[in-house]
């Protein structure tokens, strides 16, 4: 699992897409933190909101485009290896569970590193690190990673997961917020399956997001263990 995770982690730092995502994250963190005071003077905010104003840019970015970024980088993490048959080298050497969880930890560590650097950058202006918001953002990214891995296991063609990654990345946040606030009883139950419902609360219910992510990862593992490579 460690070997797989290390390879996945390091490979994520290579390539133009990763570079662009890292730059967007860091620039958003930097400028939203730097100009947080401008926002504070323009809008009326509660004391709690004002306290977290420096992270609002990064939080908004991950809420709205996080799924798109994660899918953009990792939509083919599983199916490309199956499609190109390099997965045969892997499954004949280690367990499928180690491969899947190794890939998950590699991707997760990449995002953890990016977010940690972003929060450190923000802390320069905010003069503090808000671990609660950091954990919330991390739970959201964990959910997005697991959803991306699940799609990559479910769909065998990398080209299709790329397309689906873009569609889901754009629609999922809109749909997610809609089901949280809609009164339509036929769809409102879905809010319990999206991370937005748990993030909206200002308590530790966001930890449920980690459970949802874990369920998706277990489902992905069950499917992958039955899949032919």
């Amino acid at each position: 699992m460690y070997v797989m995770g290390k390879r996945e982690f390091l490979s994520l730092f290579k390539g133009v897409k990763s570079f662009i995502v890292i730059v967007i994250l860091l620039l958003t963190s930097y400028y939203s933190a730097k100009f947080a005071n401008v926002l504070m003077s323009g809008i009326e905010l509660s004391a709690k909101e004002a306290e977290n104003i420096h992270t609002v840019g990064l939080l908004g970015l991950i809420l709205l485009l996080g799924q798109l970024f994660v899918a953009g980088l990792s939509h083919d993490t599983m199916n490309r290896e199956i499609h190109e048959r390099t997965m045969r080298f892997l499954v004949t050497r280690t367990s499928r569970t180690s491969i899947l969880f190794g890939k998950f930890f590699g991707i997760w560590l990449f995002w953890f590193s990016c977010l940690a650097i972003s929060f450190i950058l923000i802390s320069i202006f905010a003069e503090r690190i808000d671990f609660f918001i950091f954990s919330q953002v991390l739970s959201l990214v964990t959910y997005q990673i697991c959803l991306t891995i699940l799609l990559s296991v479910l769909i065998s063609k990398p080209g299709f997961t790329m397309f689906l990654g873009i569609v889901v990345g754009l629609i999922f946040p809109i749909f997610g917020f809609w089901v949280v606030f809609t009164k339509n009883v036929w769809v409102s139950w879905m809010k319990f399956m999206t991370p937005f419902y748990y993030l909206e609360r200002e308590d530790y219910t966001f930890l449920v997001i980690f459970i949802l992510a874990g369920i998706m990862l277990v489902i992905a593992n069950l499917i992958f263990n039955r899949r032919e490579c």
Partner: protein
Amino acid sequence: MIAIETKQLTKSYGAVPIVKGIDLIVEKGEIFGFLGRNGAGKSTFINMLTGIIQPSSGTYALLGVNGPNDDVKERIGVMPDYSTLYGSLTALEHLKFLSALSGKPAGKEWCREVLTLVGLEEHARKKAAKFSFGMKKKLGIALAIIHDPELIFLDEPTSGLDAESVLRIHKLITWLQARGKTIFMTSHNLAEVEKLCTRIAIMKEGKIASIGNMEELRSFHRSTIKVKIKHSPIPVSEQIKLQQWLESAGTDLEMKAPYVTITVEDEKKIAEIIRAIQQCRADVLRVEVKEPTLEDIFLEE
């Protein structure tokens, strides 16, 4: 000691059976050849044993461990039939990554030694994307042996290689056997299998049609023996009588003095033919017996 044991191992896709209940035992230290036409089920059989696909029914054990079991994976080496590699990795990086994944990280020296064994020593730092088909094959073999496994599966290891590389791989296979490794290989090169393998199985339509060493295959098989006899002149009066007798003794008879060429099914017939010629007041000067090759046996299957 048994390296591979399968009992009624079966693989079906929907209602279509590909491998039909194979019972097989491969002893440790053997070079076992697995033959069959395209689509006979050879690769499917290997893929089941190596965990690439799951059997529909039946059981198997590798090195005494019932499969599928992840614990045995570090003791087996696999060269899949498809030579796709990570284009962005060099040969050396491939060896390091995949040996580490097997749980036995290879040192730089052992990596270089393995690359030398397969003839890729000069391409250690070249990216796999720039490799030719033959080089990919060689790296595939290197990857199968890098973690020093006890049981090695090679799916068509020499297809697409030049003659020099083929000889190098043959040497490597016999070297591995000498080090106590068990090799299970498929090949379309029948001469190669005949030369290297201690036992051979011929697969036909998902089943094992013949199995044994070359001698056993020859004797069990209803294969024919071609005999060419050089003789002294046969009196004209005896020639018709001899021809009639030979026609009943075998097939593909050809009588062109001073030779008689005939194909028989039973080697006991050879002595009878010699006696028949001698009874025609001719001397037998030379007898050439062409044993059935693996190719003959394979083509008859």
